[in-house]
């Protein structure tokens, strides 16, 4: 199992570990409710070093990456990032990715549902390493700072000009004399940043960021709370609905695809399914039912028959009910309908418009500070 170079530091701070695809992750630290509060009201620090990281020289990047990823790499301007995905030859999701244009290099950060070895073999098979792609996962740590006050943490560490970074951008800053790459990203619907640093600077950076998030009413978090925050904010989660559905079209990820591109991995299959039209798609649901009924795999009934299945579920502290995503036939995949959960006469479950909450961060204008 691949273990984060921050493992001992994380363990000393109370981290509870789990594993995904042969990679260790921090599942939780202070409990879901506490960590939720950190991010919605203050700031949370999470080790995202489980993600797979790659770099490729700028002169080779556009050609190589454009033939692999669904988005249009050629349109990623200097200092900006693209949020897109990687699919297999059948057009099924492998990884949810950020691709950043950092001047002389492009950086690829993947959150995948395959092991390091499988992803490596995929890129190998596609000839990406021969063309200049380099796996930099083992040489770096990746820390995620998220929350209503995350901007203040980042400003404190890297300076006031970080306030001007637009969403989906990359910039290089110094930390203790070492270059670190700062990505403005995040999937919690609050402010979010990823900080990529050389492994040698990882522990110092971790300590500094943890001190800052604590100062701003936050603390260390695990990935479980991120699963819930993504769902509440209707950010795509490859580890939840992405893993079970895998079809980017049913998942509503068309916005990550440049359909005019001549080639990307899985394009033929995706185009074919797009041409045929969708039979099912994923939409939001909520219910006052408990987790024993409202959970992944539960069936949703209409007029006595099962019509949909829950693909992602969590308790929403903001809404004080359970929310989720379910895969419905397209002709009834509309918000504002009421169905039954678990059986023909089960409790009510309503289809809802997503995202169902209004995050506080949306009311803050960093560029006006």
């Amino acid at each position: 199992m691949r273990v984060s170079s921050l493992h001992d530091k994380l363990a000393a701070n109370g981290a509870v570990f789990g594993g995904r695809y042969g990679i260790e992750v921090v599942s939780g630290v202070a409990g879901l409710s506490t960590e939720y509060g950190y991010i919605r009201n203050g700031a949370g620090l999470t080790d995202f070093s489980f993600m797979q990281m790659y770099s490729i020289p700028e002169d080779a990047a556009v050609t190589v990456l454009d033939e692999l990823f669904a988005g249009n790499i050629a349109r990623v301007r200097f200092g900006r990032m693209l949020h897109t995905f990687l699919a297999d030859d059948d057009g099924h999701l492998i990884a949810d990715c950020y691709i950043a244009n950092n001047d002389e290099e492009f950086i690829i950060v993947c959150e995948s549902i395959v092991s390091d070895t499988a992803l490596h073999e995929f890129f190998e098979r596609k000839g990406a390493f021969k063309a200049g792609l380099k796996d930099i996962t083992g040489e770096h740590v990746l820390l995620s700072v998220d929350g209503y006050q995350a901007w203040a943490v980042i400003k404190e560490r890297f300076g006031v000009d970080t306030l001007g970074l637009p969403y989906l951008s990359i910039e290089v800053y110094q930390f203790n004399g070492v270059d670190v790459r700062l990505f403005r990203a995040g999937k919690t619907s609050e402010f979010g940043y990823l900080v990529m640093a050389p492994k040698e600077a990882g522990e110092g950076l971790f300590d500094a960021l943890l001190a800052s998030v604590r100062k701003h009413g936050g603390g260390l978090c695990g990935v479980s709370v991120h699963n819930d925050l993504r769902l509440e904010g209707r950010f795509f989660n490859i580890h939840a609905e992405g893993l079970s559905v895998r079809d980017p079209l049913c998942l509503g990820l068309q916005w990550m695809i440049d359909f005019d591109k001549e080639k990307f991995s899985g394009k033929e299959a995706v185009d074919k399914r797009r041409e045929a039209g969708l039979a099912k798609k994923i939409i939001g649901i909520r219910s006052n039912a408990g987790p024993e009924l409202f959970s992944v795999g539960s069936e949703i009934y209409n007029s006595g028959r099962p019509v949909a299945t829950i693909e992602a579920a969590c308790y929403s502290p903001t809404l004080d009910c359970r929310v989720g995503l379910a895969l419905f036939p397209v002709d009834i995949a509309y918000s504002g309908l009421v169905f039954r959960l678990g059986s023909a006469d089960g409790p009510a479950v309503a289809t809802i418009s997503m995202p169902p909450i209004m995050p506080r961060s949306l009311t803050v204008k960093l560029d006006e500070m």
Partner: protein
Amino acid sequence: MDYKENISMNQEYVIDGEMRKTIENRKAIIDTFKQELISRLNLPYKPQDLHEDISLLGAGLGLDSLDALEIVVCVENSFGVKIPDSNISVLRSINTIVDFVISEKAQKGEQQ
């Protein structure tokens, strides 16, 4: 690896009158709005490519503040309802805009 195929469940289900009415009313607004959005913002998508929950600003479609202004005008012209300047929450997704339009039309007593 298991996954859910994009194929029909091949089972019959009943859409009762009230549900059908809700769907038809919502679908009409969605269809109109998507067409207008694609046309006004010159988006490289077909209407069926735009999931109704997709985030419009920032993540998702990644529209900017000028685009947001265009959306406000688009909603006003297409449905005769005005999104207040202060109500940024309406612009979170196509679905939240449609909810707002339905709610405003209901308040005006227009036929649903």
